[in-house]
């Protein structure tokens, strides 16, 4: 019976609810902008990763390699774009 119980999915569901609750905390508790944004960013990325791995089965087929390569490539490009934009338009803008 224990093999039939989707433990991973149930735990994933509980964890994603916890992440949602933590993110919601930013609204209800008084904290600085920096702390609030940090909490939101961290929970958002954890949540996205969780959805991808547990509920969209990213690592469960023979295409695992291609899927993760694409995800990593996407993350790298997103980071480069965000920080490059900050550099050009904010940090180094005269």
């Amino acid at each position, binding site marked *: 019976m224990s093999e039939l119980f989707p433990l991973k999915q149930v735990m994933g569901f509980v964890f994603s609810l916890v992440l949602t609750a933590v993110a919601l905390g930013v609204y209800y508790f008084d904290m600085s902008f920096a702390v609030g944004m940090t909490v939101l960013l961290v929970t958002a990325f954890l949540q996205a990763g969780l959805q991808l791995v547990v509920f969209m089965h990213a690592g469960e087929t023979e295409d695992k390699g291609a899927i993760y390569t*694409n995800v990593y*490539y996407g993350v790298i490009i997103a980071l480069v*774009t965000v920080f490059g934009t900050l*550099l*050009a*338009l904010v940090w*180094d*803008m*005269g």
Partner: protein
Amino acid sequence: MEFFERFAIPHPSIAIYASMVAAGLTMIAVIAGLTYFKKWGYLWREWITTVDHKRIGIMYLISALLMLFRGGVDAIMMRAQLAVPENKLLDAQHYNEIFTTHGVVMILFMAMPFIIFFMNFVVPLQIGARDVAFPRLNALSFWLFFMGAMLFNISFMVGGSPDAGWTSYFPLADGESVGSHYYMIAIQIAGIGTLMTGINFITTILKMRAPGMTLMKMPMFTWASLITSVIIVFAFPVLTVALAMGTMDLLFGTQFFTLDNGGMAMLWANLFWVWGHPEVYILILPAFGIYSEIISTFSRRNLYGYKSMVGSMVLISLLSFVVWAHHFFTMGQGAFANSIFSITTMAIAVPTGVKIFNWLLTLWKGKIEFTTPMLYSTLFIPLFTLGGVTGVMLAMSAADYQYHNTMFLVAHFHNVIIPGVVFAMLAGLTFYWPKMFGFMLNEKIGKWTAWLLSIGFLLAFMPMYVTGLDGQARRMYTYSESTGFGPLNMVSFIGAAIMAVGFVLIVYNIYYSVRYASRDISADPWDARTLEWATHTPVPEYNFAITPEVASSEALWDVKKKDHVLFKGDYEKIHMPNNSGVPFIMSCIFFAWGFSLVFSLWIPAIITTIGIFVCMTLRSFEKDHGHYISVKEIEDTESELRGA
């Protein structure tokens, strides 16, 4: 009457009225012709509803050629206006509208469909597949692109053309007329189609290769298409978001790109180029792939440095995402940021140089045969390198303050796009023409065209380097005689006219070859090396009667030289996708949706939005298992094609 006033063009001229009449007459002629020859059913069954990658490819090709002439006429008008100082042929507003249209049409509606035509037609054949991974999505991609392009193309006749440049920088784009609405919405619709093409081809290439074809045994054009698709999937969402934000600024009064209320006009330029620079490589990488195929075929030897070719493309795809700020070195950021983007930009010259040397070393000791495609490819190498070198000049941010916004820049990017992309498209078109239509284009006329285009290109764009360094700004509709730009601009105009003759010769070549070319050619007329030449001409619906088994990156060549066997076993029934009219209908609704948004017609906009969702919902509940082609049918088709 008040309702219809919004459709009037704000800045009319005789040329625009003449275009309206011409467009109207063409439509009447097409409708009358289809009715008279009773071709409506044929058109619907064989083309509009098709999901066959080869037919979709040919429709991309036709669209791209039409748009090439549209954009080409714009180019000629611009060069004619600038040919002499203080010219009165066009006024400033028309000139603005024409260079905007020229840029958008040539990049998004000519070059993009042209490369997607090659991807569609060639990639499934080259990897031994029966179709792409998602055939109906492919049809939707095409029709969305087509409707987006048509929406953009009617702008100059209905409501007014965009006039803020193909980059459409805010706040200039935030104008009075609906031109910028057209820009945002038409490109959005076409862009969604392109994004889906990217997803489709990544899946196709990763999942549907013939047995034995590992990644490192893929032909070079397939590699180029894979990398291009990856860049499309990562770059186009940025454009989608930027266009959506721009649309909301224009239609709903949001403040993303405004100058006050916390808006930032520079953010548009930033986002545009985050997409725009990878877009350049989306165009050039498939072109490189085509050159690789052609140079190796007509040097009669394998491509030199296969692994370094693949490696350099992967590197280019990564670097293409870290250079975008070089498009606005002068926007106000400091030397530190500019230096970083300078260095990344110059770094791109390294993998590109690797590719150039690989082509040269492929030619080295090859038995070179100067066919038309090969002529284009050998002309490409020196001409493109010239553009690459001026690119490195522009990459130096300190020096860029001199070049920025001058004709020097215009000369540079035409110098990479024309020999790089356009020559590749024409070379590839000549190369694959017999596979598509069963006869070859005339070689003599083809070579004349290649030479005319090269000479015309040099005459048209080399003078711009000089006038640009002398300070002639781009996008200025005229200049005074005392600047001394006159004679060189006249040379440019003559060059443009020679190029125009070259493009007319292409049309004549098609006409001539349709009439006189021999139909008695083999399925492999160029003695080529890869799988697309291993099947019959014309290619049957199912591409290969038996799925080929591949053992090297030049599968067909090794059949000829090393006695490899591609087709083992007997015929089995083949599973193929069904045709569908939904992609066409859905795209028509998209067109109406776009048109409604352009003119802020809210009720039709809401109705068409619902229509789009209805189409998607219907698709979700539709059970379509495709159909089988029986062994009997395959045998009949095969024996008929073999006999022919």
